[in-house]
């Protein structure tokens, strides 16, 4: 469950690059660790974030998963669907369960992200 066309972080965020935009969500592994997701807290559109800064939160009944910005930039869109139906993050983490989109401020940061193979290796290492 690690799509080849995405990039990843060691904090278990995924990134889909679309021109100068980056769509962000949490990985299948991360949603599985959290369990039933019951609440998603998203940033306001227009917020400027630095790479690594806490930008959103995904909550299950007994845990809070903080979502850090994988890249620096400005929040240009958030996914209203997951606010109403947080379980979309469980059911379709790479699709309907996306969280927010950034307009990248420093596209060079992309080089610091993992590719699918790198993330898979990282997961194996932490197990």
């Amino acid at each position, binding site marked *: 469950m690690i799509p080849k066309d995405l990039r990843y972080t060691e904090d278990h965020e995924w990134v889909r690059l679309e021109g100068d935009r980056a769509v962000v969500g949490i990985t299948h592994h991360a949603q599985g660790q959290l369990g*039933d997701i*019951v*609440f998603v807290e998203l940033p306001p559109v227009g917020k400027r974030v630095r790479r690594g800064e806490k930008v959103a939160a995904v909550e*299950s*009944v*007994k845990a809070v998963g903080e979502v850090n910005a994988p890249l620096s930039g400005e929040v240009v869109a958030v996914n209203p669907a997951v606010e109403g139906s*947080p*379980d979309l993050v469980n059911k379709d983490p790479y699709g309907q369960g996306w969280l927010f989109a950034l307009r990248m401020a420093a596209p060079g940061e992309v080089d610091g992200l993992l590719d699918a193979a790198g993330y898979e290796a990282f997961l194996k290492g932490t197990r």
Partner: protein
Amino acid sequence: MSTIYDRGAPGRRAVALPALQNSEEELLLELPPALRRRNPPRLPEVSQPELVRHYTELSRMNYGVDTGFYPLGSCTMKYNPKLHEDLARLPGFSGLHPLLPPEECQGALAVLWELGELLQGITGMPGVTLQPAAGAHGELTGMLLLKRWLEDRGETGRTKVLLPDSAHGTNPASAAMVGFTVVSLPSDRRGMVDLEALKRALGPDVAGIMLTVPNTLGIFEEDILEITELVHGAGGLCYFDGANFNAYLGRARPGDMGADIFHINLHKTFSTPHGGGGPGAGPVTVSEALVPYLPVPGIVRRGDRFELDWDRPKSVGRVHPYHGNFLVAVRALAYILTLGDEGMREVSAGAVLAANYLKALLQDVYRVPYDRLVKHEFVLSGAGLGEGIRTLDVVKRLMDYGFHPPTIYFPLIVPEALMIEPTETEPKEVLDAFAEALRAIAREAREDPQLLKEAPHGTPVRRLDEARAVREPRLRIQFEKS
């Protein structure tokens, strides 16, 4: 599950009250119109027998220490002596108003003073406040003391509080409430504070450390003297969380280990009932350096009289509107007086004996991630018992065997943690039966995992859907629009 609102009928009442001299309508008309309540609060209307039946029924769906074994780790669910309940109900205690002049409250002030003196002696620390109403409130008081101490010394650049990664959640939350930044310290392979990591973390920006002794793995920090010396050497103070004081009561004193601030949960170590979640009490004892900062008023003895001491210009102020949870203090004092020195030693001996015994009965079946001599509690892991079996399943099944589950999923550094604190008040036979139940459940996990997954089977309700409670919040009864 029915609530009290499902019972009764309009017009029923459970108490006969005196009559008014005027009519209700007349009196209500005296209130300014803007203040007169338009719609009365919707409260139950039940007769006294209905009321008693309802709450008796609810009580039977509960489980307390008087019901059975309650090995909830870090909570010290020991037996609550019944004499204490009678003493707390004496009218000279329960009916006394705290704002009367001290000369009218001598007996109550004497109780607080006596308890304070005893707690100072038991902890080996020369100052005390009984105001904090719970353990976390004691922690907050401790953090306020630390902040005031730093301010008084002009050391406001010390903004960080160090916390082992095994700490109770109340510790970081308390530090944050007074504006400290929390820095987490990793545990080492022994389950203790990693001294090298501590040395790296210490510096001119560190206000102090919050330690739980023994820690939440039930392990005594063998390097405790070195830890407190390092922190003091770096200009910080040492806060000890006393939630686990039952482990060494009457045998060792935090004041002798370098503690500057120590909170005591009277509802844990000193046997006062937990009340379904409270009230408890969280007195704080302090080292000499912090005495000037203690909350006002202090309670002092002058000759044979007890007085309130407001003369503390450097005090942090009040943390409680009166003198703390007085009736809890009455119970704790009765407990200490009953036990005496020898009885307190028996408490810690019994608690540590029971914990190590239970651990010995279980460690061939459940993994013990940090396998050492423990104090009053120990932590097992429920991982690897069977396909898809989690600790949650194990403890839900434990209910079917008639036991209250231990604390689970804490401390966070142990995956699938089961944190077991038997206390000194359980007979050996009960410990044996509990171990036998956990061993049987481990067998069931392999042979019939579905039995665990669907547990509990014999409780008033089956496993409850916690996700639903958040997704569709119903936090009060919703009435039809009236």
